[in-house]
């Protein structure tokens, strides 16, 4: 789950990382009041989960409460890369002397957290990394001993941070590490970390990604999730804990396992068809979960045929068959459905499907080919 800037900075604050004073709002009128409370000169920042916010006009300076109201109205009307701006952060304006970059991320290649810092930060950090990689310092963190102060000192000297800032820099980076660990983050990024004109280090912008799998020890995660953010079918998918992505084609796919689901998509393409979605019901799905997945797929108006390919290990094919049959009687889909069941309890599952009007396939490839034919309207001649 990706956190908004305001959520990330709220976490930073809890871990002792200085942030600019400010408040979140959804109205231009309130923005004016917040600006007045903060002394007049503020920055209006669109809260969207898209990169390139600044370049899209989502960050604006206002020199008076009046101007804050106008700019807030402008920003609230924006659509940034498909994300309508519904919330804005009104922060006190900070005069910046220097911008730096600090982040902790799990490196999936080394399988360890890594601390990354750069003497220069800001919007163009990726270009900096590309153009002058020597400006970026990376330090691997051993999960057993954690991040040590000596490693942070390596960074402060590398990025030429004047000695008077070392103590507060150390406190910020240790705070970021604590936040990273305690929040089960896969990313915690401060960009930019600035030196202000009154010689303070301040996290001006922040980004965090937290691990959904750790929700069992984070009762706060569900309330951090923004329902506005998801398409209705994705909300539904989240409810049943399966993974769904809408694609452009016309063959609805219901598969167990991400690898197999991708393989089905690839094979459909290879034989001249086009998948309408990626849907992985995971392992050990119940009939209810299968029913939920069917509802999402059949509700998609682009779908001309549905391929259900289940190879049961943890998943019991009889449970899948039960879910599919319930979907048939509740939804009465108008498009042909191809079902291929194999593995755990496949015999029981196929027995349940006996007498239904589903098109059965014995193998992976047969299922794929029948689904492609069915989507092209040639399905009747393919029934065995």
């Amino acid at each position: 789950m990706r956190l908004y800037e305001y959520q990330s900075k709220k976490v930073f604050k809890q871990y002792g990382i200085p942030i600019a004073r400010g408040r979140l709002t959804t109205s231009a009128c309130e923005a004016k009041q917040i600006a007045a409370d903060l002394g007049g000169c503020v920055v209006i920042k669109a809260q969207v989960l898209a990169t390139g916010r600044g370049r899209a006009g989502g960050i604006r300076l206002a020199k008076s409460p009046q101007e804050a109201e106008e700019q807030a109205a402008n920003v609230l009307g924006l659509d940034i890369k498909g994300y309508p701006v519904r919330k804005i952060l009104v922060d006190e304006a900070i005069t910046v002397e220097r911008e730096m970059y600090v982040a902790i991320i799990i490196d999936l290649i080394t399988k360890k957290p890594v601390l990354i810092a750069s003497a220069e930060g800001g919007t163009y950090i990726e270009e900096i990394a590309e153009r002058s990689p020597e400006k970026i310092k990376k330090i691997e963190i051993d999960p057993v001993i954690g991040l040590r102060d000596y490693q942070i000192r390596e960074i402060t000297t590398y990025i030429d941070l004047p000695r008077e800032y070392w103590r507060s820099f150390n406190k910020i980076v240790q705070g970021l590490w604590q936040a990273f660990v305690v929040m089960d983050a896969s990313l915690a990024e401060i960009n930019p970390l600035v030196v202000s004109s009154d010689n303070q280090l301040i996290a001006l912008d922040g980004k965090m990604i937290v691990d959904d799998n750790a929700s069992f020890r984070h009762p706060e995660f569900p309330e951090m999730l923004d329902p506005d953010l998801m398409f209705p079918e994705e909300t539904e998918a989240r409810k049943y804990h399966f993974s769904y992505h809408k694609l452009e084609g016309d063959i609805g796919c219901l598969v167990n396992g991400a690898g197999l689901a991708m393989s089905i998509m690839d094979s459909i393409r290879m034989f001249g068809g086009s998948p309408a979605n990626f849907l992985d019901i995971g392992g050990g799905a119940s009939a209810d979960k299968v029913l939920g997945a069917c509802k999402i797929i059949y509700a998609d108006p682009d779908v001309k045929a549905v391929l259900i390919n289940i190879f049961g290990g943890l998943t019991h094919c009889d449970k899948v068959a039960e879910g599919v049959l319930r979907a048939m009687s509740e939804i009465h889909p108008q498009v042909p459905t191809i079902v291929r069941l194999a593995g755990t309890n496949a015999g029981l599952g196929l027995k349940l499907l006996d007498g239904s009007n589903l098109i059965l396939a014995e193998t992976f490839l047969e299922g794929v080919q029948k689904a492609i034919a069915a989507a092209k309207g040639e399905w009747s001649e393919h029934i065995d």
Partner: protein
Amino acid sequence: MSILIDKKTRLLIQGISGSHGLFHSQKMLEYGTNVVAGVTPGRGGEWVLEGKIPVFESAKIAVEATGANASLVFVPASSALDALYEIADAGISLIICITEGIPIWDVIQASAYLRQNGVRLIGPNSPGVITAGESLAGVIPGNICSAGNIGVVSRSGTLTYEVLYALKRYGLGISTCVGIGGDPIIGTNFVDILEMYEVDPHTEQVVLIGEIGGEEEEKAAEFILNEMTKPVVGYIAGLTAPVGKRMGHASAIIKKGLGKAAEKIDMLQNSGVQIADHPEEIPQLLFH
């Protein structure tokens, strides 16, 4: 013969009393696996599966009482970290973890500890390991493969079943099939398993099933090119998958490759690996 497990393996099952644990323990017994014990805290002293398998309070007691030398983990994701530490401290040197959805930080910590203590971890999010005709430790359906000389290693669960089933229908048998697990961070990678196949006298050729993401297929390609003499056939899923979401700027800064399927296929082909276009083509590319 085989790698990792054989008919002498004495298997302990952590989380045997749950519904998956019980169902699959039964299947493993039917397959002929030497299941010697179960562990479920709070259920010690019970016997399950028609009184055949004793359940113990702790891993330590179970290992002492039964001489178990491998463990299969079915516990929920929320207690997986504890279960992994517990079984390692009980002196077991092979852990196969089926549990999916374990927080990534827990896996990082567990792998670091297990590696320090010389314990091999397969998974998490693994479908298990099967040595055809000898031992099944996991949830792989036992009837979809027969004994032979092909080693199968895969990051996927169900896609592996497709391949095993296709091999069987084609009349080809396997030595050992290892599901290394689908999570971004796992205890044992392709290269570790390829090393074992290379020296296993009963494995003559290998099937490698990969997918998009990470760099493990690339590392495998390098190993195959430089160290392997046995032929390898590969398949990579995700050629048409939409490009994944970005993780802030930091991921762009640390990432070398993007883990795309086409790049993996290229590298494997350059190492002499024959790549199948779809899972059912794999048997045709193997020696007969």
